């Protein structure tokens, strides 16, 4: 699922050899919660079943309920969570993932 994930060059200090951030565009019809999991799995190169369940951090239905809403007021909504060792920021259209490091925090 890396085909539409654009790895960018903003590598955190100390992680020279590996990408430490990624922006994942959410497909039409793809629930935001699913996109979050796929983005983390892609960036950390971890199978989805080896990640801690997203439910332990946020109920995926709640996340999808907020960001999947068509209400105009939700267009600008951003949700940021800490999940899978990353800082994850989700909007309606994309997921931005940044590996959390002591320096970055």
């Amino acid at each position: 699922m890396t085909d539409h994930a654009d790895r960018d060059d903003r590598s955190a200090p100390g992680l020279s050899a590996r990408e430490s951030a990624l922006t994942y565009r959410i497909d039409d019809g793809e629930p935001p919660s699913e996109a979050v999991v796929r983005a983390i799995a892609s960036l950390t190169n971890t199978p989805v079943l080896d990640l801690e369940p997203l439910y332990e951090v946020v109920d995926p239905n709640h996340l999808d309920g907020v960001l999947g809403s068509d209400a105009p007021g939700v267009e600008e909504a951003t949700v940021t969570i800490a999940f899978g060792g990353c800082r994850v920021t989700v909007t309606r259209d994309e997921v931005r993932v940044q590996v959390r490091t002591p320096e970055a925090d």
Partner: protein
Amino acid sequence: MGSEVPDEGRVPVAGDSPHRAIVAAVRDADGSLHVEELADRLVRRDTILVETAEYEDEFDRAKLELHHNHLPKLADAGLVEYDSEANVVTDGTPSASAVDWEGARDIPALVTELRSAVEPDADEIGILEGREAVIEYGRRLADEAEEELFCMYVDTDLLEEECLRRARNAIDRGVDMCMGSGNPAVRELTREELPEATIWEPQLDWLNRPTYPRVGRLVIADRRQVMLAVLEEPTDDGAYPAETAVVGEGEDNPLVVLVRELLGARLDHLDYQSTDFRSELST
């Protein structure tokens, strides 16, 4: 289901098909199941798969949703146990919600569908086990009927002396009594014991099935209380066959609605039909 927000400590199970299907699949597996195996079963059950690519997508997605959403949620509700590191799911220890769900499992799918169409406080459906409990409930309905008592019995064995006496009392109170049976012996007994009762002969297949398990008795009081009892095949030892009944009360109760629908116009046109039937008898 995307925006469904469960109440604190409660998970929508009976009306929520993914959760229900998951719990059923885990129970059917008796024991434990790896998430991939569970995802495979759910996907194969739900889709007619034409292309491998389609299966892979569905499987991949099911796996993700199970691990990241459904299984930890169902585990919170005590319906399954989920080891998220080993990715193994096992049947949960029975909890109050699991027991409620078990009861709902035996009800025909049609009733489940009707659930969504009725008031939530009117959808209680009970299960009665055993002949004694069924007879007792039937008597209660006869006693509580105010206007109409509509019955269907397949055999005189089921019509005990006491049942006839309660029916007699109901008729004496002014209740319209209808007795239906495909069995001539039942109709004959009713004619002798309850001459005021309207007698009808069911034409509906589901009331006349010759094979077991079959509907043994159906009692409807005032079109708002229903008991539908099903008989298992009789054994050779002469004991009464095992009997289980589904009961529901209230005009909008799904079982009551279902039975009214299944009987359809019969309930309303009974007089017309029975006149025919009676004149046929007298000739």
